């Protein structure tokens, strides 16, 4: 029941919003719907925390033996929490943003939420593919209609990249379906025995889709442009939640399904991720636009998750899982600040800002906390995740390059500190200029949403135990399937 509610609330509210007139009504309905889904998630994590409430399994397309099968396990609980917590925060923090045809904007936002929740909950491959695309299409319209100057061309590139990736995934899933004797069930995929040739084929088919979504080098070229051109609320969705679909796909649909191919090509993928991390960090250092800076830093952080996953041990995998949540929270926090700055000053260029600490102390404090979390300072949430991932990489037994991986990937920690601290310095400190002279502090709704994020950052940073418990079962399952447990 919980999974059905989670998907239906945003879906129905989203469809209903198309018919609603008036910006205020649309806004509040959307916020209310997202809070309702968050409440359902909390209930699912606490009161209704049993199999009967957390699974839903009904026949869908009989001829294909495909089922409406949703389930909340540890990893999906974590990502559901991220999605349902993220959306109200996003809507709250962008409350003062103005959109033409606001009802359609919020409707599409809710539809994309329904799509993403469906991705995280599906246990049936065809259903998974359906929701994968359902999440994408509203985002296409959101970026194209409400984005920046070059939005049409940029979003188009994004759409074609991801659609092509998805089609490859579809082929991979059909192959698995045939191998599994006509079943789309994930459980049946986990039981498959295939030759390594077949596995390799399927591995690459699925991997392309996930790699484009995450994105890792060299499939990332759509990402900085799209993040820059999208309306910031959509960028938050894209980078905070949607990229996790790719990482999630690798963890749930790739490594456990084709373990042999994952061994064979783990090193290749890891090198790709590491090249991307270094490269993105170096570019991030050169950026003047805040949005582009955060976009490139995101490539580096996601790359590390991939490295952690392909270390193929408990520490690496669990680290990647909880880092999905942490990165989502942190980057949404950063975007909220970027949006607040952009709304206030009409610019995102660091060269035009400066001295905000004098004029907006609350904002500066919050920005510093979120930024420090982003570079994984101890006692913040990201530290736990990064530590576990690096620990996993160093201790990895499936590769002989473990030290090289850890060292080169570790370079990005330093680079991240460089560009993040430089960002804080250029935005918050130094002298005020004409533009920032008249600055006031951030509004209440932004403070409120950032407060929630800061609480999450510190809570997970100090007391990560519940998250680790949540994810341990899933990582054991994946590693068990990969014969490492």
């Amino acid at each position, binding site marked *: 029941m919980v999974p059905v509610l989670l998907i239906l609330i945003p879906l129905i509210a989203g469809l209903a919003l198309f018919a609603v007139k008036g910006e205020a009504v649309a806004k509040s309905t959307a916020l209310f719907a997202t809070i309702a889904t968050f409440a359902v998630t909390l209930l699912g994590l606490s009161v209704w925390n049993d199999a009967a409430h957390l699974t839903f399994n009904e026949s869908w397309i009989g*001829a294909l033996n495909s089922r409406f099968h949703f389930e909340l396990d540890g990893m999906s609980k974590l990502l559901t929490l991220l999605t349902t917590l993220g959306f109200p925060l996003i809507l709250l923090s962008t409350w003062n943003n103005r959109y033409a045809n606001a009802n359609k904007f919020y409707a599409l936002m809710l539809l994309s939420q329904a799509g993403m929740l469906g991705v995280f909950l599906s246990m049936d491959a065809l259903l998974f593919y359906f929701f994968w695309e359902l999440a994408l299409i509203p985002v296409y319209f959101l970026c194209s209609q409400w984005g920046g100057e070059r939005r*049409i061309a940029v979003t188009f590139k994004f759409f074609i990249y991801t659609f092509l990736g998805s089609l490859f995934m*579809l082929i991979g899933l059909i192959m698995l379906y045939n191998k599994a004797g006509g079943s789309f069930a994930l459980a049946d995929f986990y039981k498959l025995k295939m030759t390594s040739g077949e596995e390799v084929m399927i591995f690459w088919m699925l991997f392309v889709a996930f790699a484009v979504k995450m994105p890792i080098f060299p499939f990332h070229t759509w990402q900085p442009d799209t993040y820059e051109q999208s309306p910031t609320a959509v960028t938050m969705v894209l980078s905070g939640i949607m990229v996790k679909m790719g990482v999630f796909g690798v963890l749930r649909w790739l490594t456990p399904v084709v373990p042999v191919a994952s061994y064979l090509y783990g090193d290749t993928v890891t090198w790709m991720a590491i090249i991307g991390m270094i490269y993105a960090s170096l570019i991030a250092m050169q950026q003047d636009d805040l949005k582009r800076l955060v976009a490139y830093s995101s490539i580096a952080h996601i790359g590390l998750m991939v490295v952690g996953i392909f270390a193929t041990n408990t520490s690496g995998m669990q680290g990647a899982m909880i880092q999905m949540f942490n990165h989502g929270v942190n980057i949404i926090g950063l975007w909220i600040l970027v949006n607040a700055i952009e709304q206030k000053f009409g610019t995102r260029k660091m060269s035009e800002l400066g001295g905000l600490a004098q004029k907006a102390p609350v904002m500066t404090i919050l920005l510093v906390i979120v930024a420090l979390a982003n570079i994984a300072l101890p006692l913040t949430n990201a530290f736990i995740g990064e530590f576990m991932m690096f620990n996993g990489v160093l201790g990895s037994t499936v590769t002989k390059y473990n030290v090289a991986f850890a060292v080169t990937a570790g370079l990005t920690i330093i680079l991240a500190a460089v560009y993040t601290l430089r960002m804080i310095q250029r935005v918050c400190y130094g002298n005020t200029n004409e533009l920032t002279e008249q600055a006031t502090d951030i509004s209440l709704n932004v403070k409120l949403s950032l407060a929630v994020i800061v609480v999450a950052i510190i809570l997970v940073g100090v007391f990560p135990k519940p998250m680790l418990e949540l994810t341990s079962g899933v990582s054991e399952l994946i590693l068990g399937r990969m014969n490492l447990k």
Partner: protein
Amino acid sequence: MNAIIISAILGVVLMFSGIFISNKATVRSIAIAGMFLLLLANLAEQYGHGFFSVNTRDMLVFNRFGLLINSIAYGSTFLYLLVSARDIEKVGINHAEYFALIFFILSGVAIVTSFNTLLMLFLGIEIISIPLYILTGSDKRNLKSNEAALKYFLMGSFSTGIMLMGIALLYGAKGSFNMNFMAGAINPERNFWFITGLLLLLISMSFKVSAAPFHFWTPDVYDGAPTVFTSFMATVVKAAVFVAFIRLYDAAFTESHPTWKLTLSFITAATLFIGNITAVFQQSVKRMLAYSSIAQAGFMMFALFSHNDLSREGIVLYAFGYSLATIGIFAVLARMKDYTFDGFNGLARREPILAATTTIFLLSLAGIPLTIGFFAKYYMLASAIKTGADTWLVIFAILCAAVSVYYYFRVIQSMYFKDGEAETEEINPAFRWVLVAMAALVILLGIFPNMLLQYLYF
């Protein structure tokens, strides 16, 4: 049998109604009511109520697949008449005759979905083709339409000649026109005349479904014909001829399937490639749709290429999904003042319902999930994967599908994201409602394709 006889009678009725009734609306109502009747009669036969018992001497065989395809063709035509009947009247002065010709074509459709001898195949194809030549040239004052009709007629006659030659060779090799005798008897690998005959049939049928490299007539004819007839030609007729192709293939080619597989994979790949690549470069939405119909034919070719149960189910979904979406788009296109991409600029603001439904149709043509077009493409790809070999063709097809997103989405971009004053003719509310109903059907079958597929097995 219901379908063949009733559609022929209705054709005659409409021809005469043109003489005796001068009111356009009455003729239109007769046509729509007749179409509905025809659909009901065919559905009745699907449930086992044949009204006519004619001894066809095994020349026609009515099976579930054929009847379902008939229902799809008639259902599509019914929707087509609902959205486009007014446009048909605008083409020229002989409006009743146009409706009559459509019913004659439908009679041919019913023949090609149930033929059991090559003779009937030939008759069916010709009954479909000749009215089409006339409809293509029906806009007499338009030079382009005249040119298209002449081109279509000449090319069509050539392909008819080739088909006849093929049939004659097959008769020579087998001593019978009957499909049941086609397989077996003589080892097809060894008989030169048999193989040559089949090859000629393959070529002529490829021409009829506009598969590359026999597609050259398609863009010119589709572009030149009045828009309202283009949608009919590109959907109902094309799907029906594809089904004829599949029936022919089932009966005659199965044993020599390995021999033809390479040829078919070449035809499929070439059709996909040429259709998609050339569609990218079009400036007119109508021509883009003409080329995209070649591209869609490429996907339908998978039904022949993989030749299994999935492809059979897939062609049912493809026929309906493609017909629905294309009829919808052409109905909108026929009401646009300007057929170029720029002509669609800003349509979403002026006609939100038109733009929204067109978007759904385009998403379906591109094969995006939640639309029937997704399942159509899904079945085609799945059928090819099921055969085990030829993964390259599947990968090639999805690359082409990604290309197709480019030109379909250009229309969406124009409608929603570009500023402009898209001009349309006056649009009545009923038209909007039919479009909405069609779009709803596209999505409904996109979520529950079983609703259609179950009729294959009930």
